[in-house]
């Protein structure tokens, strides 16, 4: 039915030759930036920075910089990140005249302005079993295959439960219950992407700077839709990183995530003419809690604010000499 999954799916173990990757990077005269978006990640941030710095900067110089863009942590995330050698930025202080939004997408978008790399790697800062394959395996398809411009991770994802026990699971409930049905209904080709919501991806700046960034949960979905629309699925690769242990989220948090993703998705498919919405979508996710035998609504406002393609920002064009 589709053959993209055959040709563009890789396993990290195929890319263990780091010397070769460094040589190709050098030959192509590329610079690479790693960005870690954070919000209260003091338990995991040091490990991520330390391993990437040791393995992919000191021993095999694939990365030229590691930056942390933070959404307002109240724990010691920034102090620890700085101690372990990352360049640390508070999201609110980057392009402050454009306003301050809270969300992972906002951090990723602002990282485009702060970083200098030709290639950017984004990885979540809450990965407990971090390993440098999370970065080099995403970079490898970009370095080895000229037609690949964006690489995305997928995993078997055991979720940490209880205090210290872990159990195997397929994970990705929102993927299976929300995204995959949507892809199957509107863009079946994209259902070949095994974990469209994974928070780890790498791509060329020339891709990221030309697409809008929703500030919240919709960022991963919109990124795939926009890249496929502008360049086709053939510029995307997916890499099996085998195992990722992360914090579990409760069902209500996943509900809010699903809300943001659905909204982003529906707006995108309307924009390309696949559906016609007769009325603007609402902005509030309404969930109920039972408090002292009474059901009380818990309303979360999610407007779905999007940042425009970074290339449209004058300061960015000036910084990167884009005429």
């Amino acid at each position: 039915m589709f053959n993209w999954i055959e040709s563009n799916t890789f396993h990290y173990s195929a890319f263990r030759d780091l010397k070769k990757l460094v040589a190709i990077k050098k030959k192509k005269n590329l610079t690479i930036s790693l960005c870690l978006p954070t919000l209260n990640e003091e338990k995991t941030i040091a490990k991520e920075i330390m391993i990437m710095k040791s393995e992919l900067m000191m021993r095999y110089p694939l990365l030229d910089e590691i930056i942390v863009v933070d959404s307002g942590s109240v724990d010691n995330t920034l102090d620890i990140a700085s101690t372990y050698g990352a360049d640390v930025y508070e999201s609110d202080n980057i392009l402050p005249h454009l306003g301050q939004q809270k969300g992972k997408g906002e951090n990723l978008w602002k990282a485009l302005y702060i970083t200098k790399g030709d290639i950017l790697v984004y990885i979540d800062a809450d990965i407990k079993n971090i390993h440098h394959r999370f970065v080099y395996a995403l970079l490898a398809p970009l370095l080895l295959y000229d037609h690949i411009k964006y690489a995305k991770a997928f995993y078997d994802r055991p979720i940490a439960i209880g205090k210290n026990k872990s159990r195997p699971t397929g994970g990705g409930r929102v993927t299976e219950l929300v995204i995959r049905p949507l892809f199957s209904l509107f863009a079946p080709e994209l259902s070949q992407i095994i974990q469209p919501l994974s928070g780890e991806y790498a791509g060329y700046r020339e891709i990221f700077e030309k697409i809008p960034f929703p500030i919240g949960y919709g960022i991963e979905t919109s990124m795939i839709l926009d890249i496929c629309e502008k360049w086709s699925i053939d510029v995307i690769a997916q890499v099996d990183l085998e195992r990722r242990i992360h914090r579990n989220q409760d069902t209500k948090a996943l509900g809010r995530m699903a809300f943001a993703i659905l909204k982003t998705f529906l707006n995108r498919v309307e924009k390309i003419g696949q559906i016609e919405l007769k009325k603007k979508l609402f902005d509030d996710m309404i969930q109920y809690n039972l408090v002292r035998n009474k059901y009380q609504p818990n309303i979360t406002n999610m407007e779905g604010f999007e940042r425009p393609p970074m290339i449209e920002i004058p300061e960015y064009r000036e910084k990167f000499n884009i005429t």
Partner: protein
Amino acid sequence: MEEILERLPGFVESIKSIKDTILTNVVLLGEIPSPTFKEKKRAALLMERMADFQVDECTTDGYRNPIGIIRGTGKNKPPIFIVAHLDTFFDKDIDYNYIIKKKVITGPGILDNSLSVGVLATLPEIFRTLDLRFESDIVLAGVIQSIGHGNLRGTRHLVENWATPIRGAVCIEGGELGRLNYFSDSMIRAEIHCKTTDTHGDHYPSMSNAILILNKVINKILNLRLPQTPQTKIVLGKIAGGVNYGHIAHIGTLGFEIRSDSDDMVKNVYSDIQDIIDGISHEYEIKLSMIPISNLNATRLEFNHPLVKSSAAVIRKLGITPISKPSESELSIFISHNIPAVTLGLTHGENYYLENAKMEIEPIFKGIAQLIGVIMAIDKGLCDV
């Protein structure tokens, strides 16, 4: 020796310059579950890391202990062994997650023995950073099946089957920095298992309860007269029994250790306890058995052995006070084969055997400098007798 001692303070800063690499190895290796008898995955990664750090040879011995060899410049110098045990006290299904803060790392097994294994893997890089070459081959050995029921099997096999003479050995442990072990007590660890049924209570109602029987055994052990010389003690370390609160316990286990600086005394006390077991078992017609778990003979270097003196001088030069106690570890296997050996600790920490074990980062660099100093002393022939 003075020449080596003078270089040590400078080593500390140089080693610190590759802090990220050292700690990366500690974390990558330490987060792989490695209970005794199930060290295969950690051993495989240690091999991979040693190969990646360009040891000259990377292999396993006949017992599957992973070994990396850094070839020396001398043709006829016997090798120096650096040894860290790979196994941990924890089951494989707990969360082996290390949390790194500014000054500490927390997680199961971090001090016993992930830190040492990580340092072992990084030694080739540390030698390059310090621009050190040795005359002797340096053999980096991550030994399996050391603790508990493992009874140092990996080390025993390694030492007994190594084809050439061994010049000396340094065993490394996470903590405590300053430890200088060069002797081990004679020791037997054993478990007493008690099994009863309801019928055992026909004549003596309390005798159907395994916990009460073990209580009787404990009382008799406590009545044994132990000499002050040779120094001897019995540690009652573990007890378990029963199923729930409301039912009489029909099974029970008592774990204990006999320790002395005399092999004969340990054997005699063990025999006394066997008599206690046999007596109670016979008189009350119950199943009571004793199973030895591990054992060691007393071994030692003298305090004036050049390896001990050199090691103490290295530790003192780094501003640390050496502390010497008996150690029931890999050390004893080397010394019992007439190979001079010491055990060193690499840092400070707490909660060694809990899942939230915590180690300090900053002292590690002195701990490694100390290890390098001792290796250099052995390599220069300063510890040869």
